[in-house]
């Protein structure tokens, strides 16, 4: 860690676990849930958010001293929207099918509360390098949860990972299916994502009692 001081490293590592944007800060849940039925979509979404947050945090941090605070929300929205348009156009050009699957959820990165939340809470008060690390760290924390949810939903719901069958063939009854295993179609429907995230929160808070909320 010659590159990063301990304080800077924490900016990246904290959001991965004990200060996770989804399970602890409760930010950016909207887009996290709808697109996690497949692992591939989750990974692409995570990468898009990492890109938008890393660059967005730097831009806001650069502008923090010249931006009148009254119109900062609109300025932030425009910065994010411009970055999201770039992501959307790249996806449409190089991964058209995937951009169809993600449909409006790429656009909804704009109103992803993680991004606005970190702009307000961090980038407005910190330098460029630290803002960049904070952006990457929080986006990674978001991505980790997204990929976890996507992994379980695709594995249990369709028996595949990245579209490749891993549990055998459900029609020819090979692999696990030969002993009577069935795909759980329940995992594919949207509300299952909420339950999976609920269970992740449960596991995380049982492991770290300090995170338990006062009811």
């Amino acid at each position, binding site marked *: 860690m010659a590159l990063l001081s301990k304080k800077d490293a924490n900016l990246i590592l904290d959001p991965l676990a004990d200060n996770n944007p989804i399970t602890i800060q409760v930010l950016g*849940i909207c887009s996290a849930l709808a697109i996690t039925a497949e692992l591939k979509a989750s990974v692409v979404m995570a990468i898009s958010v990492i890109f938008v947050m890393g660059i967005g945090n730097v831009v806001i941090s650069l502008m923090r001293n010249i931006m009148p605070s009254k119109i900062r*929300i609109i300025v932030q929205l425009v910065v994010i929207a411009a970055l999201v348009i770039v992501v959307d156009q790249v996806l449409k050009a190089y991964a058209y099918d995937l951009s169809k699957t993600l449909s409006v959820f790429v*656009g909804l990165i704009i109103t992803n*509360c993680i991004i606005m939340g970190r702009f307000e809470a961090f980038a407005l008060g910190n330098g460029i390098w630290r803002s960049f690390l904070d952006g990457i760290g929080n986006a990674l924390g978001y991505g980790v949860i997204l990929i976890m949810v996507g992994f379980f939903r695709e594995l249990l719901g*369709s028996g595949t990972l990245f579209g490749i069958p891993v549990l055998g063939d459900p029609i020819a009854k090979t692999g696990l299916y030969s002993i009577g295993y069935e795909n759980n179609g329940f995992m594919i429907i949207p509300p299952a994502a909420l339950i999976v995230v*609920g269970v992740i929160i449960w596991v995380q808070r*049982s492991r770290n009692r300090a995170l338990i909320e006062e009811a």
Partner: protein
Amino acid sequence: MEHVELFFKSIFIDNMVFAVFLGMCSYLAVSKKVSTAVGLGAAVIFVLGVTVPLNWLLDQYLLQDGALAWLGPEYADYNLSFLSFILFIATIATMVQLVEIVVEKFSPALYNSLGIFLPLIAVNCAILGGSLFMQAREIPSFALALNYGISSGIGWFLAILAIAAIREKIRYSNVPAPLRGLGITFIITGLMGIGFQSFGGMLTGDNEPPEGTVPTTAEKAIEEKEIKKEIEEDEKAVSYNDVINE
């Protein structure tokens, strides 16, 4: 008729919270008390009802492929749809600001009950989501866009009202400590979402299945196989009967 259909479809089947998870952040953050939930819900209905038709106009006369044709034939080739994100969010942010100023000026009572939620709403995914879905589903007329905005707002209102009422009651229950607060809210929302899935059978009119229920190719293959099997069995049964009869 199509108005009634769209109205119920956007409230129950394509419910903003339970079917597409829009506006989850404020849904989770502001659902601790019924009274605040009602305030935020009313504000969402109002803002969606204003911004969706407005963005419909923008989409129709500015953004769509060939939408600029009304300026003259030389503009008919332009497709500005890549600008929709930035224009939609700008419309929403300015509308919210405008509404806040107008309401504060003319109805202080309404401002006191609704005002504090308005800035929150500019970044509520349900609002931008409403406009983006309006664009993606190609809603054909201004009146339908208005209908869509208001009815999806009502759907969101119902959802936050329900979860706020449940959360007020759940304080008296003995929830496992690590699940308290956020965890149990997620799971309850999931269960409510499963409940709302049953409205999928309510689709009227055209036989288009609701999103997410389209059978996968694997399922289709299994179904076809079963049908074939049944047909074969039927054939066998017939021949068996024929043999007996003979």
